[in-house]
């Protein structure tokens, strides 16, 4: 199998990126001008508290030694300790992770079908009426502030009409589905335009590909060409779309979770930022970066697995 060299090449790039992520998240805390111990302790802390925090977190050691401790802790699975909750960050992430994962999956389920339909409708006749309308709607959709849309939807569909709960996570699978519908819908409305644009571009690129010309030369009808030649070739771009989505999704859910009071990682992130719980911020940034890297990697490997050309 020629897959093996590809996988190993891709995996070999990984340590560099991971090391980079460690450096960036480590430097995050030392980025602020002044003393990180004072930052952790807050403005009103006494000199003794600051000294205690400095000593407790090893901030009195030289920078390189702190970095080595940080990396060693990471390798041991310790991504820090929350000052606010007095618990390990990993335990917090474990606790807050499920609503976010559920919401993310929900958004993907809600966003992918309309994306595929809209992109196909656009790409069937580029420049046609349908394409123009979808394009304009897509550009307009990108300009809507997600948090505003979320507030307005919770006001009218939640509080006004009483169809959906406006906050929280609910009990059980169907409770989650019911509670997270509005958050997922608000995120999807903003995500669909981004995805449609990139899938449309991929589909149109395929319509000018040589194999389409060949099919046409062999006398295949336009409908047959579209459904049997172009569309299967667009599966890969759709898969790659999932990779593109991750970063957008994480950013989008952070805000939406805050609006709908969903107890997820985004709400934890914002709460920690406002509560100056910087080790949690650091740990979450690391986790989000790791998630992005892993999903991109999986998408790349899947692409290679499905598409023999990538392996060449």
């Amino acid at each position, binding site marked *: 199998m020629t897959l093996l060299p590809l996988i190993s090449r891709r995996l070999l*790039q990984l340590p*560099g*990126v991971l090391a*980079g*992520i460690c450096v*960036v998240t480590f430097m*995050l*805390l030392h*980025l*602020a001008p002044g003393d990180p111990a004072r*930052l952790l302790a807050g403005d009103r802390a006494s000199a003794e508290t600051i000294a205690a925090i400095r000593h407790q977190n090893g901030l009195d050691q030289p920078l390189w030694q702190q970095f080595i401790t940080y990396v060693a802790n990471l390798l041991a699975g310790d991504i820090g300790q929350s000052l606010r909750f007095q618990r390990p960050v990993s335990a917090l992430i474990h606790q807050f992770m499920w609503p976010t994962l559920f919401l993310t999956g929900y958004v993907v389920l809600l966003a992918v079908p309309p994306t595929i339909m809209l992109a196909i409708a656009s790409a069937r006749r580029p420049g046609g009426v349908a394409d123009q309308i979808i394009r*304009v709607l897509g*550009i*307009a959709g*990108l*300009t*809507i*502030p*997600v*948090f*505003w*849309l979320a*507030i*307005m939807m*919770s*006001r009218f569909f939640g*509080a006004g009409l009483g169809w959906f709960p406006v906050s929280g996570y609910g009990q059980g699978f169907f409770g989650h589905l019911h509670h997270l519908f509005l958050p997922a819908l608000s995120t999807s409305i903003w995500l669909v335009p981004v995805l449609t644009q990139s899938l449309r571009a991929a589909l149109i690129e395929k319509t000018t590909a040589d194999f389409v010309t060949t099919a046409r030369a062999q006398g295949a009808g336009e409908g047959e060409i579209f459904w049997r030649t172009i569309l299967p070739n667009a599966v890969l771009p759709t898969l790659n779309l999932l990779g593109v989505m*991750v*970063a*957008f999704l*994480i*950013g*989008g859910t*952070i*805000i939406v979770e*805050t*609006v709908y009071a969903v107890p997820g990682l985004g709400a934890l*992130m*914002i709460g*920690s*930022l*406002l509560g100056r719980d*910087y080790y949690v*911020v*650091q740990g*979450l*940034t690391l986790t*989000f*970066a790791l998630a*992005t*890297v892993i999903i991109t990697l999986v998408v790349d490997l899947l692409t290679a697995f499905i598409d023999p050309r990538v392996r060449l």
Partner: protein
Amino acid sequence: MRHVKILFETLRSVRLTGPMLAAAAILGGWFLVALTANFIAPHDPDAIDIVHMLGAPSAEHWFGTDQVGRDVFSRVLHASRVDLLLCVVGVLPPLLIGTTLGLLSGYFGGVVDVIFMRIYDLTAAFPFFVLVLAIVGVLGPGLSNFIIALALVGWVTYARLVRAEVLVVKESEYIQAAQCLGFSQPAILLHHVLPNVMGSIIAYGVSDAVLVMLAGASFGFIGMGAQPPLAEWGVMIADGQSFVLQAWWICFFPGLAAISLGLGFAFLGDGLGQLQRAQAS
């Protein structure tokens, strides 16, 4: 100066389409509003009037009043100064830094280019919003720190775009001709390469203004950007969130304003991008 001239000639040769004209009109309108907010706003944006708090839209208060009786319409107008300025100050530093580094790394290649590509890989590993959020969190909430964080993270996208364009332009005959004629490297970069990538940068920068404005409003909304009582659309929406059941207008109108400004930038950027692609092909 020469570049300014080229820029103006490019702009003059641009045939404006309908959507682009509409977009330019929206942007021009907001620009005027921002300049004259002091004169055209019917009320003092910060004047508290408890007697008329949470008032519905009326002839006196077109967009209603908020929880302390401030006129929402006047505040929306005044906030346009902050949000419009945010678009400019948020886009220009990453654009300038990214363009410079992208030009150098694309044109000269070598070690600089390798280092740059590693930085790009690394930045791509972080979700944009998370990284900016974390940096602002550590530096401290506020508009200036938001701008700094945006510059720290945002330049990479511009540099990558410019680098890709430079790699193509570098191989063109006119650059080879300039090299054969013995022009100095800085002269080639500034007078031959840069003018040919400027169009894409501007088109991207205008579209980027939408994202910057939305990010700025989002940061204001979660309390990490503009700080109350400063009138900013995101801050206003956050202010109104607790009262949305009794007074939807406090949230509704600032969002509408943000959308309209966003539409201006989005359609202008889209039009410029299309022209760019049409010229290229």
